[in-house]
């Protein structure tokens, strides 16, 4: 009985935090402050929003009218396509956290992740109806589609910026500076990863060729 009640409470809490995303996107400064400081957000809700974002992107490929999105299916790898969101997101969170902890940022990695995911809310919120919308408009009305699509991205970007201001307790100027710096740190990380993987593959190739040589001689 208690377990059930507990479960129900957890569930209502989850729903409340998810619903809070709708408040956050309309009241970003207020919302992001309370998100972490008043514990009105949850990781589960953040994960859900991220999942919906990925779902929106994948569904968009399949269900958007070809008038607006022509997909070269031969060139699509669904895992790579999903990774094209997750990988930059991971880099962003780690890069941002790594930099801001050095410069008086108050946010933890968990908070940065949560706030960023909450910031993504407008994307699924606009993109899902857009998929349906794309199927009832012609190319003459393409501007509506384009504008709404841009709004969904711009809104999300501004929300993430606001989130960074609130959770790190930075000024606007400092946030902008650190957003750019995070961009560079992402590039550095990509560079190191590439270096790492190319080194590893070179190393493996070396041992393989040594092994081959041995096999030939024996």
């Amino acid at each position, binding site marked *: 009985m208690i377990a059930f009640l507990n479960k129900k409470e957890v569930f209502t809490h989850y729903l409340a935090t998810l619903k809070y995303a709708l408040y956050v996107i309309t009241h970003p400064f207020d919302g992001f402050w309370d998100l972490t400081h008043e514990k009105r957000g949850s990781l589960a809700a953040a994960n859900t929003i991220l999942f919906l974002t990925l779902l929106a*992107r994948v569904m*968009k*490929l399949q269900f*958007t009218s*070809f*008038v*607006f*999105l*022509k*997909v*070269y299916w031969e*060139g*699509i*790898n669904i895992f*790579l*396509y999903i*990774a*094209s969101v997750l990988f930059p997101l991971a880099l962003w969170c780690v890069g941002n956290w790594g930099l801001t902890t050095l410069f008086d940022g108050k946010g933890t990695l968990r908070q940065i992740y949560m706030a960023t995911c909450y910031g993504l809310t407008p994307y699924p919120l606009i993109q899902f109806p857009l998929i349906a919308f794309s199927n*009832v408009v*012609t*190319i*003459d009305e393409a501007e509506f589609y384009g504008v709404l*699509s841009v709004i969904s991205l711009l809104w999300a970007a501004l929300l993430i910026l606001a989130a960074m201001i609130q959770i790190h307790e930075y000024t606007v100027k400092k946030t902008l500076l650190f957003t750019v710096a995070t961009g560079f740190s992402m590039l550095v990380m990509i560079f190191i990863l590439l270096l790492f993987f190319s080194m590893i593959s070179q190393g493996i190739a070396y041992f393989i060729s040594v092994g081959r040589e041995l096999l030939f001689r024996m």
Partner: protein
Amino acid sequence: MKKIMKRISALLLGAAVLAGSSTVAYAEKGYTYNYDWWEDVQYSPDLYEVTGVFTATDMGLEDKLSGPQGLYVCGSMIYICDTGNNRIIELERTKKDSFECRRIIDSFKGDVEITTFSSPTDIAVSEDGCFYIADMNNQRILKLDKDLNYLMQFDQPVDSTIDPASRFLPNKISIDTAGRVYCAATNINQGLIKYEPDGAFSGFVGATEVTYDWTDYIWKRLATKEQRAKLASFVPTEYSNLYMDAEGFIYACTSNVTEDDLADDSAKPIRKLNLMGTDILIRNGPFAPIGDLWWNGENSGYDGPSLFSDITALENDIYVALDKVRGRLFGYNDQGDMVFTFGGAGNMDGYFRQPSALDHMGHDLLVLDSVDCSVTVFSTTEFGGLVYEAIEAFQNGKYYESGEIWKEVLKLNGNYDLAYIGIGRSLLRQEKYHEAMEYFELKWDDENYSKAFKQYRKEWVEEHIVLIVLALFLVLCLPLAVGRVRKIKHEIDTADIF
């Protein structure tokens, strides 16, 4: 390169990932091909087959042709400018695969100093049988009557932009029904020279407007004098050839294009000029008519883009351009969609060593090869005949028939995009919008799809108007009703009558 650009732009909308490099094996796998919406090569059955390759012997001439440059077809007569031998050969096509020499024109009568030709490069024949001959090294365009009597000549235009001391080298000519002469001359890049019937120079036609780009400006400001001299100067077009179609529009082609311009579609190697000299060519196809879309590829085997040396327009508004680099023929319809590409460089029949001129006789295409000294005649195959039939049926307003013929085309080649779009357009005219949409969607034709969808949507709304009004009514009134009910409930709950 263009293809990757297109894919990126298409996928940027979805910010999709380009997995793997888009390399399409471009080795010669077939003779005839086309491009699909994604600009991938789709091999196709031949639209044209070689009826014959005719050399001087086959035409009944004693000595070989030498570097022939010009070809003109008038009815069943064919005129070849045998440039190296300073003569013009008049042939008649007696049967589908045989030619007979009617006359060898190497001089004319008249009261002028020189009554022979020196490197004649092009010829045109008017409706009343007058010959117009670009007599290049004699620096004149001759007008002769049908019995080869000298009538008049067109000389170097007198214009402030032309140095009178420079040599006038008329290369290619065309005439309109009123007797005006249009000439593409070597070293003259102001456009086509236009002469009135009385021989007066009346201006240049079809000069490209010189565009000015602010990035060029910045580069020029930063560059040193030497670097600036090396930068490509803004030189307008020098046309390589021209063709006057039956309606009086000039199809002109130029080989003066850069790869960058071709890649971003700002180069216009093929133009259709109206009387004002404005380019009115329709470029509604998924890619611009620039010849091959691939060049410099590892497998393309050719260096550089297609360069056109001649162009001709059939009566059904399909125009065919001749690529001298690859020895290929590119056919486009009046909307700018590619209809076919075939040919190649080589010694076999249907391949060329240095194609110099192109003309058509009905649906047949004639290509003059200036190294091989031969004329290759192409006739349509069953497939090509059906494609033309379908296009012409549509142009003549027989939309249903056109659709049926396109279906026949599809039986022969299921990869032929124009057939799907053709069926779609036919269905659109028959007001079968939903079916038309399916055909357009298959071949990514968003413009036509939108046209069909607009009509379909209108029909749908008209059919379901009751439902829509009902739904709207519910959406608007339900919250009101719910609110009212809640209010009453609240009043009852809070009332203290109990």
